[in-house]
């Protein structure tokens, strides 16, 4: 029914969507798994990554320079939020949640003030435009770029997690912060660092997203909803779960988008309901 070429194209497409979702979710999942802070403002940080990124890339006339600077800026920004705001509410999960929720208003509104309410499509740099013929079907180069980016980030996270002492601390801290402290490790500083990494990932994700789907002040809210659904599907507290869920959702959207375009938007929820009815705690969840 489907030609092999088209089928593979859809798979590749789904993979690129999945990778994009992975990028968007990674920072959130990391911060949540380690700090147990549900950062509702993560979507807004992503949006800032997009707007700021496009601005910086234009100012510096450099796409790669833009991505690096944006990543650093949003990382620093996330650190400040943790240090000045979230830390004051240590121990009170509800209020931390509400705080990040309140930040959405502030961050989103500032963007609207500075850049206005319009939706702006953005063109990626010349060398990332256009498409290649893969499996007999055109495939945009930017999507390949997304897959590459996603893979790089995924590998980096994997390496840090499993091969470095920092990763060791993070993995242990997810289980028991108290014991990590009892080993003489100042876990508060690691918290801040992880928040920073979360911000860096948000910045990168936003940057990549901006050139892909354009800039819109609704981005923040839209993305955080996607992120929450994917993290729920993957299972709370499981970074691997998030990654796997992101790919699954991407693939689902790709195929649903082909057969029933009107329902592409709902695809993500369908996956969620299906997964939750089979395994209520998510794919890799341990609730």
């Amino acid at each position, binding site marked *: 029914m489907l030609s092999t070429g088209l089928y593979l194209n859809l798979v590749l497409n789904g993979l690129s969507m999945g990778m994009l979702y992975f990028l968007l979710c990674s920072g959130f999942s990391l911060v949540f798994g380690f700090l*147990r802070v*549900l950062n509702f403002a993560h979507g807004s940080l992503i949006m800032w990554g997009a707007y700021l990124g496009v601005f910086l890339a234009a100012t510096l006339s450099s796409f790669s320079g833009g991505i690096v600077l944006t990543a650093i800026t949003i990382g620093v920004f996330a650190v400040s939020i943790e240090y000045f*705001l979230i830390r*004051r*509410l*240590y*121990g009170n*999960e*509800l*209020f931390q*949640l*509400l*705080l990040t*929720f*309140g*930040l*959405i*208003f*502030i961050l989103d*509104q*500032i963007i*609207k*003030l500075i850049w206005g309410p319009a939706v702006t499509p953005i063109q990626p740099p010349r060398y990332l435009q256009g498409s290649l013929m893969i499996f007999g079907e055109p495939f945009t180069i930017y999507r390949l770029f997304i897959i590459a980016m996603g893979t790089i980030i995924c590998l980096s996270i994997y390496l840090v997690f499993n091969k470095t002492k920092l990763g060791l601390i993070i993995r242990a801290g997810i289980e028991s*912060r*108290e014991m990590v*402290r009892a080993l003489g490790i100042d876990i*508060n500083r690691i918290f801040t660092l992880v928040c920073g990494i979360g911000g860096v990932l948000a910045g990168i994700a936003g940057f990549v997203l901006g050139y892909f789907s354009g800039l819109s002040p609704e981005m923040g*809210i839209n993305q955080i*909803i996607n992120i*929450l*659904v994917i*993290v*729920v599907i993957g299972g*709370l507290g499981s970074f691997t779960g998030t990654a796997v869920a992101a790919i699954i959702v991407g693939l689902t959207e790709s195929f649903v988008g082909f057969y029933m375009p*009107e*329902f592409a*938007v*709902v695809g993500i*929820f369908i996956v*969620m*309901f299906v997964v*939750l009815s089979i395994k*209520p*705690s998510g794919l890799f969840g341990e*609730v």
Partner: protein
Amino acid sequence: MEASAYMKRHWPWIVVLSFLISLPFFSSEYVMVVAMQIFIWGVFAISYDLLIGYSGIVSFGHAVFFGTGAYTSALLMLKADLSFWASLPVIIIVCGLLGLMIGLLTLRFSDIYFTMITLAIGQFFYFIVIKTYKFSGGDDGLHGLPMILPEKIHLYFLALAFLLLIYLFSRRLIGSPLGATLVAMRENEFRAKMIGYNILTYKLIVLVISGIMAGLAGAMDAAILRSVFPGFMHADTTLNVILMTIIGGMGSLIGPVLGAALVTVGQQYLSSYFESWLLIFGVVFVLIVLFLPKGIVGVRSVLALKAPVGGDSSRSEAKSGVPPR
């Protein structure tokens, strides 16, 4: 209690009530309309406070009830030719069942998980609404609902009565044994479970009640605006009610109404002066979360407490957040 003693004790209420009752007679229609919005959102916020303030249930999909109530009412009035009053029992049943269904699906999950799932479910309903044009009018919503009462001023008093009714009912609820159980659950769910309370049942009950209240508020809103929009179901609506409840002061029942008033007024009036009144509210919200957890109504108790409570929070404990054993 004797009448004069009663009046002495409750004089602020009497003043406010008198003011509200006489409002339509000395102000413009615009003010009346804004006031009606405040009453309706006040009910919505009270329903949310029952969850977050009293039961410790943090739902981010509460708009689903508001929207369902509104759409149900609108559809019954438009397509089934039912009067508003006849549709009320249907709304109660529909929202009650919805609350039951959602509760059974989601309440078993731990707090944060629950919060996330409710947000997802809420948005899911939103998408269903905008995708089913034939049924719900899609992006445009439904319009042209008949006037349910001959004059706007009647609507005003209906909305006011609605708010008072819900408020008094909620007060009664909180004061009842059920209310005490809910607070016990919120304070220490583990301990409550150990004493033998079936947490799930109680949470389910309060969710259903809250859902019905929110649904009625939605129906009211639809009746007054004579329209329904998909926005009623959107996360933005939930965000708004959370904003109101927290700014006003959660866990106080009157705080959320106050919050509703502040946010609604802000929306209507400040938006002509400040381009981003929402930004200001966002900042206020964050400040309240950080420094004034009891919200505006808690200001008095914060001012009364000069010294921080508790004697021995050394840096280590505060920083490590280790639960003592």
